[in-house]
Every structure is written in C-alpha cells, then in structure tokens.
C-alpha cells in the first residue's frame, strides 16, 4: 500500500442515513492519485449517495471525507471553491444548464473561474467539445436539442473545462450506444494518460470496468465489501460479486477485454 502514497480522496467511517433508512454504515474508501476507480453495487446500495458525499453535496450523518487532505464541509467558502475547481463532476443526466448553449455551458467555468475573456473561453470550449467527441455544430445547440449520448459528452466537456485533477463520473456510459461507450472508454484512458486525471466512476457497465478501471470497489451491505484490482475483486467469495462478474454479461465483457 505504501507504494501508492497519500490517497487523494479518503473516506473514513462514513454513515449516511435517510430517516430510519441507513445507506452507509462505517464505510471506508481510498482513491489514489492517477488511478481510475470503478464503484459498483446493486441498485439502492448508495453509489450515487457516496459520490454526493465525497463532492460535498451531502453532509454525511457521521464520518469524514477528505479530498486532497482537507474536509470540504469544514473549509471556509473561498478555500472550498478553490478546491472544488480542482475536481469535475459528470452527473448521471448531464445536468447541463438548459438556458445556455453547449458552448456557453462549457465556457461558463472558464469565464467565472479562470477570468478569461468570452472569446478565449469559447475558443477553449470548442476544443473541449471536440475532445469529448462532439461535432462542432453541436456547440451552438441547447441541451434540449441534443440526444442523450451527446448530452453526456457535453457534460464531460464541461466537467473537464478547468482541467481538474480529480474527475467524478456518475454512470458515464449509461444511455450511450456501444460504439459511443467504447469511444468514451478510450477517451477516458487518453485523458487520464495525458492529463494525469484521477477518476472516481460509478458505473454498471462491465465493459467500461474491464477496459478502464485500475481498481474496483464493491458497495454491499452498507459498506465497501472489497476494493482492489479487478482480478482480486472478481475472485471474492460473495454471491453478489460472483453473479456480477461471472454472470453471462461479466464473462462476455471479460472475454472482450482479453481479446482486444
């Protein structure tokens, strides 16, 4: 473990409770610099809640979340904003601002945080747009005019606008066609290699896990059941993990990953 150095995100003893319903109980998780961590788990195991707790959108009922060594919720607003600029979030449904065009959506953080003039910001935004694999014409459209896959890509471009060190993805390939999903995986690998991104990814897509993830964390029974390299996780003796990685889809994805 020592070879990995300090974790960039450190979750300790996290408890999340909605009224009587306990989602997480004593959850521990580490995210190390430069890795792509896939978080999997059945429906209702609190994957998205975990993501929301880490990015500071939800105050945990107990426990602590440290990003780059600091607890977001305890920081003064300015310092917190500074830290938040270093992470990008891709929400499940894109969460693009519907009153702005795609280019304006991507340019917004550049104008607000990097103090760029509008023309420069929009020029950079067009580069991000192309990086995310969208055609230039899509830039002047409004989010409601885009298909689901294009919304995902536009949202990724916005998440990458400030070149964050840390990227949070919530089901990035859900709703993409297989070609688009595969392209997304490659895009993620390229960006990770060139930008040194650290990625926290909630996903159901086994192909994405096999192609991109360095480590996988399985959420089950209100905590992280196992976290580690794929082979180690897949070998875990747990009914859910077995069904997940060794079911028909898991085998197909494994086969695909081995043959390519």
């Amino acid at each position, binding site marked *: 473990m020592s*070879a*990995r*150095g300090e974790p960039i995100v450190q979750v300790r003893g996290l408890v999340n409770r909605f009224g009587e319903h306990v989602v997480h109980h004593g959850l521990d998780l580490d995210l*190390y*610099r*430069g*890795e792509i961590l896939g978080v999997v788990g059945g429906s209702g195991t609190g994957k998205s809640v975990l993501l929301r707790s880490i990015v500071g959108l939800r105050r945990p009922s107990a426990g602590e979340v440290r990003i780059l060594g600091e607890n977001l919720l305890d920081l003064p607003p300015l310092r917190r904003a500074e830290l938040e600029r270093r992470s990008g979030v891709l929400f499940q449904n894109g969460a693009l601002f*519907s*009153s702005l065009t795609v280019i304006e959506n991507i340019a917004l953080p*550049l104008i607000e945080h*990097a103090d*760029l*003039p509008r023309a*420069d910001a929009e*020029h*950079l935004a*067009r*580069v*991000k747009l*192309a*990086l995310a694999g969208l*055609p*230039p*014409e899509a*830039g*002047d459209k409004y*989010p*409601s005019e885009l298909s689901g896959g294009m919304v995902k890509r536009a949202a990724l471009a916005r998440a*990458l606008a*400030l*070149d964050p060190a840390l990227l949070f993805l919530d089901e990035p390939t859900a709703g993409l066609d297989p070609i688009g999903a595969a392209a997304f995986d490659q895009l993620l690998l*390229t*960006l*990770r*290699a*060139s*930008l*040194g991104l650290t990625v926290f990814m909630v996903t159901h897509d086994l192909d994405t896990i096999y192609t991109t993830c*360095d*480590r996988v964390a399985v959420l089950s029974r209100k905590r992280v059941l196992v976290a*580690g*390299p*794929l*082979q180690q996780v897949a070998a875990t003796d747990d009914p859910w993990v077995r069904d997940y990685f060794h079911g028909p889809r898991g085998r197909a994805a494994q086969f695909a990953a081995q043959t390519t």
Partner: protein
Amino acid sequence: MTDGVDDSDNEVAARAAPTGPGRCRLEQGPRGSRLTISGDWTLAYYSALRRAVAAMPRTQLPGELSFEGLGELDTAGATLLANLLGSERLRELPESVPGLTTEYRALLLTVGRALEAKAPPPRPRGNVLIELLGRIGRTVETVGRQVVTLLGFMGLTLSALALALPRPQRWRITALVSHIEQTGLNAVPIVALLTFMVGAVVAFLGATVLNNFGASIYTVDLVAYSFMREFGVLLTAIMLAGRTASAFTAQIGSMKANEELDALRVQGLDPIELLVLPRVLALIIALPMLAFLAVLCGLAGGGAVALLSLDIPLPRFLEILSNVPLQHFLVGLVKAPVFAFLIALIGCLEGFKSGSSAESVGNHTTSSVVQSIFVVILLDALAALFFMEMGW
C-alpha cells in the same frame, strides 16, 4: 501490486514541478531556426501565452523543436501550442522530441486532432428593421394559431366530456374532489381576505367622492352593485388565473417532460379524459362558489367601513342591500362558469404545449397566467357591454 496504480504513480512523480509562466523562443542557429518551448503552459497563464503565441512570426516555421524546460501542460496550453505549431507539423511530430514526455505528446496530439474540427460559420445577421417586422409577423401568426389551438382543445374537451357523461363508471370522482379541494377550498382564505379589503377600499372611495354631494349613504349601493355585478367574479377569476392556471400548467407540463403523457397514450388512455376533464369540471364547480364567497366578503368589507367610518348602522345597511334587485347578482355570477372553463382550458393546454425542459415548463406557466388573465378581463369587458345594452 499487479494493477496499473504503481505505473500511474510514477507517472505523476515524473511530471515536472511548476516552473513559472510558459515561454516560447525562436532562435536562429547554425542548422536553421529552432523553437524552444519552456515553462508552464496552463490555464492560469492563458492570456499571456496567447499574446506570446500571437506575436510569433507565422511565415518562417522552425526546422527544429525543443521542449526543454517544459513544466506543466494542460488542455488550454496544448490548444495554444497546437495553434502555434499548426496541424501539419503536429501530424509530423517525431516520436521523441527533447523535453516532451509521452503523456504530453499524447495530449498535444489529441488536442491537435480536436482542433482540426472547424467551427461552424457564424450565423449572418440580417437587417434590424426586417428582423423587427419578421418578429411582429411571427407574433401575430402565433397569436392566430393560439386561438385556433384553444378552440380545437375546447372541442376535444367537450367531446371527451360528451363521451364520459353517459358512462358513470368512467367518472373520476376522486380526482374531481381532490381538484375541488386544491383549487376551491384551499383558495378560500386568500380570496376572502383580498375581496374583503377591496370591498373596504371601494367603500372608502365611494365615501370620499359621494360625500361631496351629500350622498354618502349611496356608498352601500356602490359596493353592492360593483361586487355583485363585477368585482366578486372578476377578482376571483383573476386570482384563480394566477393560482390555478399556473398550477395546472406546471402539473401537466412536468408530466409531459417526464414522458408520462406519452405513457398514458401508449396504454390506450386518453390524457384529456384523465387529466383535463377533472380539472376543468373541478374549476367550474369551485369558481362560482368562490365568487359567491367573494361577493359576501366584499359586502362585509364595505359594511365594515360603512359601520365604523360612515356611521351607517347595520340594519340600515342590510335594508339597502335587500333593495338591490336580484338580477345584478345573477348577471355577475353567470359569468363564473365561463371564466372557470376558459382558465382551466388555458392552464391545461399550455401544459400540453410545453416542451421537455424545465425552462419550457416555466415559460408556459407564465404564458398560461398571462393568457387566462387577459381572456378573463376581455370577456368581462364584453359581457359588461352586452348586459348594459340589454338593460339587464
């Protein structure tokens, strides 16, 4: 460790520490010109770097490239570098360039490829006058189409009503009662309070003006006639246009945004019958009742002013009221179901017309309030004219 984490860790360690703002220098050497890129090429220095890149001579491209002393590079810096080098030179970028790590080389190439996608040409701007005329034309056309759509929707609703009426098993009593509660009962406090206050204001107004003629006793008639004929119904209708039409639009609009209306249709259910009829009928029942309440509260407001400020005793007040012919009350109240029908129709129709985004639902909610208030006041003015000419 067998996973890729160790490698990426080394990768991070190999990344150069920050070295200050980026620079580019063109030198003439013995073997031709040589371009040296150094420092941090990041978003933080974007404006300065852009100026530096713009200042570089474009005509004489250097034969040799050097990235010695390159610090950090992000997509913003890579964009500028790709612009500086041009897409052709980027494609011919050799495998190893001094000072350029493989990761940064990959980033540069990725950004270079992304830059090759040309931006679409900006939309041409037309003559302002012509655009203004075009806009007026479009608005007029929209208004015309809106009227036709509303009439069509009215027909659809009436035909759904005609189909549902003879079949009591298809009456949606629960939905009807629930909507009567929401639009009628829940609106009682606000309608009562507002009309009471307007009644008092009208009485004060009458007292001020009529006092000059020594006829302040007619204040009671003023309040009675105005509330029975006009204000009772009109104020209630305007309040419900703001309160209920907007609610109908928002409810149906968000169902539409969530594809719930489509789900109803593919299950062979009629959204008009399920969603519109209960709302329309509920408002047709609720609005006359609220209007009656409004008349009472308006009279109470006038009565309070008469009693406390004009020293007209309660029996005298009631005696004057009882001398007001009933027809004025009926002429007022007969408008209530018509207003209710139109307010509910406009509210529902705007909901159906809204798009899939939250913003569109918001726009249509505004539009439904504006339209229903407009229709209510327009109809009221026409009705006032008609009743006066008829001598009712």
